[in-house]
């Protein structure tokens, strides 16, 4: 993927992949999966922040989070903060993260997803009197386990669309 392919870059795949992730997070899951719905949008933001930090950064992640807030009818800003958090974690250390083995990346995703669940749960606890129960952190586990799938899928998408990795 060199400069020669500049004309053929299809950068719209980035917002498109985020839109698909949003779709995946609003579809109805069966009741037994209630607490295990993975953070699709965070995974996609995490990928693009590592692979193309010039195209996806804290600001665009924040806007994606704000749209997710609209879709999920949560308070404005809850998912925006977590999306920005995912973005800054990935952008500031994208070079190191690229060197990691995929399972080490999974661990990083798990830690970030745990922070996300804790923050969103805490906001719901403050505003909606929600109980904080251990099952909520299931989502962090499924998010981490899905990282290899999202990573390989989006890598194919990125290579096909000619978006190059930026240092």
């Amino acid at each position: 993927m060199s400069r020669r392919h500049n004309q053929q870059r299809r950068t719209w795949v980035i917002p498109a992949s985020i839109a698909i992730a949003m779709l995946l997070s609003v579809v109805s899951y069966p009741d037994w999966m209630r607490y295990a719905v993975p953070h699709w949008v965070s995974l996609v933001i995490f990928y693009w922040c590592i692979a193309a930090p010039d195209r996806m950064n804290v600001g665009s992640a924040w806007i994606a989070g704000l749209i997710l807030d609209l879709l999920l009818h949560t308070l404005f800003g809850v998912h925006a903060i977590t999306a920005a958090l995912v973005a800054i974690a990935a952008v500031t250390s994208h070079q190191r993260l690229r060197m990691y083995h995929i399972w080490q990346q999974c661990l990083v995703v798990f830690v970030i997803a745990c922070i996300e669940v804790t923050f969103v749960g805490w906001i719901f606890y403050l505003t909606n009197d929600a109980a904080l129960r251990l099952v909520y952190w299931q989502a962090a586990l499924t998010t981490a386990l899905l990282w290899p799938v999202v990573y390989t899928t989006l890598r194919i998408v990125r290579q096909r669309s000619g978006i190059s990795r930026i240092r």
Partner: protein
Amino acid sequence: MILRQVSVFYRFLFLVMLSLGLMIVDHRSDLLRPIRSVASVVTLPFHSLNQLPGKIATAIRSYYPDDSLFRELEDLRAKQLKLESHLQRYDALVAENSRLSKLLSAARRSDDQVILANIVNAGLDPFSHRIIINRGAEAGVFVGQPVIAPNGVLGQVSEVNLRQSIVTLVTDRSHGIPVQVQRNGLRTIVQGTGHSDRVGVPYLPRLADIRKGDVLVSSGMGGRFPAGYKVAEVDEIITDANEAFLSINATTTARIDFVKQVLLVWDSERLAVE
């Protein structure tokens, strides 16, 4: 490089502050309501894609030359849903009649007005129990409107947009509904627990007359839910000599997993008053 990282960090900090501000404004005031309402026009297609598998199935079925049977089936299903919801109240009415047959010489209320709504999304986030239905301000839905399913009260409308509304279920931790025991008319409150299909009855004293298997119906107190709709059935009563109140677990009679369509109710008594 370091300079760039510093600037990224400041941008992040700024966005966090902005988000916190937005959250406070959104929680404390209605200033952002119009944005949500307008945006719901855009977000509805996202949620509607949920129903795509069902729609495809319907489309395939409609290829059959004679789909009048299917249409009839749909009509009958809708009709049955309405009838079942009316029927719920008759159990309560019979019980009430036997208790107060003399006093009830006054004319009984007419039936409540209802409209059907589809559940568009049944699991918004793991922390609350809210669903999205496909009726909104256009259909005259209002905040606080009771929402019932064929076998019981499901919850109440908590947010109205143009073409969709958010319903908070009785199982949500922030939800309470005034009820009475159908057997003896004992009044109390049913509170959500945050577990699906589970509710609690937190405010009954130790000597209260309540048994396992008792049906709790809405009492109409507070004027939000019309009286007589089933809410929950008592599963378990734990008596602890050290506690002033009984610890009661109950299961909601309306099971959200099995519900596709719900009824929005306009209380006939309240309509008559207004």
